[in-house]
């Protein structure tokens, strides 16, 4: 896994995501979820392309039950996009890279 995509947890969520100056894409995943693992390389490609302008983090829903519950997550993979501490969009499922990319661009 790329070092540039930070694995965060329930405790660090506020500091890393809500208090972030840059927009954040949060990847909610779990090790037993095939599509979550499959989409990993795509998230890495996006981080390489937009990492200077957008922060990319991951939350393992197995180890961190509080945050997914707070945002009503009942399916993974789910990507939630945050700007200025607010959730502005969420995308669920193994979607096309362009869909994630367009959403990232709309945050800039």
């Amino acid at each position, binding site marked *: 896994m790329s070092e540039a995509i930070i694995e965060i947890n329930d405790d660090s969520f506020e500091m890393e995501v809500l208090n972030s100056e840059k927009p954040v894409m949060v990847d909610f995943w779990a090790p037993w979820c095939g599509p979550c693992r499959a989409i990993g*390389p795509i998230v890495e490609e996006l981080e390489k392309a937009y990492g200077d302008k957008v922060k990319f983090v991951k939350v393992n829903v197995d180890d961190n039950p509080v945050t997914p519950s707070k945002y009503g997550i009942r399916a993974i993979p789910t990507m939630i996009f945050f700007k200025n501490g607010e959730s502005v969009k969420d995308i669920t499922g193994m979607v096309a*890279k362009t869909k994630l990319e367009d959403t990232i661009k709309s945050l800039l």
Partner: protein
Amino acid sequence: MSLTDYDLVIVGAGPAGLCAGIYAARAKMNVLILEKTAPGGQIIITDWIENYPGFPDGISGFDLGAKMLHQAKNLGVEIDTSEVLSMEISEERKLLHLKGRIISSKTVLIATGAYPRRLNIGEDKFIGKGVSFCATCDAPFFKGKKVVAVGGGDTAVQEAMYLTKFAEKVYLVHRRDELRAAKILRERAFKNDKIEFVWDSVVSGMSGFFNVENVRIKNVKTGKEKTIQADGCFIWIGIIPNTSFLGDFLELDKSGAIVTDSNMATSVPGIFAAGDVRATPLRQVATAVSDGAIAVMSAEHFIENTSA
């Protein structure tokens, strides 16, 4: 304008596309695979595959997809994460329009697979909030809860059994009084105490504040409706071929699948189809990889015959 000119561009990196990539690389063709999301195809979401030869104890869909991808990469197959927006056919070249660029190729293999059929009863608003097409992704969110599973084929029965590892109860709703699934799966399902079969029925609606809370079931023979308390509804009622990006220049059958001959040739010379996207009597990993291999042979012959 200078375009990169390939011998073969494969659209889709599921089993059909990856196998075709392997064969094309070994035939020393200049080949490119385009995949708009993650390679592996529909098997990525499957819990367990027991009928693909070579794996005596079975294998997870994700692992099988990963192995195929690994094999293709070992042979140097180029895979680009891009979406084909449209295609253009000329006498000598097939043009694929991507975002911001055009790719040219002598032959194209459409291996774009299929996507899950919807119930079309307004369930879209509950996707990710109770409605799901992937048990391996979402079953753990329904631990100790009651869920509905819709369908009667292999996928529905296999995945319903996977759900029982987490859910307290699974209502398997099927519109007929007999499952289509393979006998071995049927037997296992009937022995599973957590599965309650709801025959001759369809899901006619669902409701809930943010997430699914209740699912309405209608008996298609009597017309009677009843409401089941359920927190989830998993839908496995078939798949629809991914052909909408093609426009209308390829012959499709009534279900939208690409019509091909036994050499995987479509109605347009130089364009081939393989896997779930084409009209085929059986949609399995075993048939997809076979299609992919045959398509590459056909593409090679096409190039030889047209380059004189």
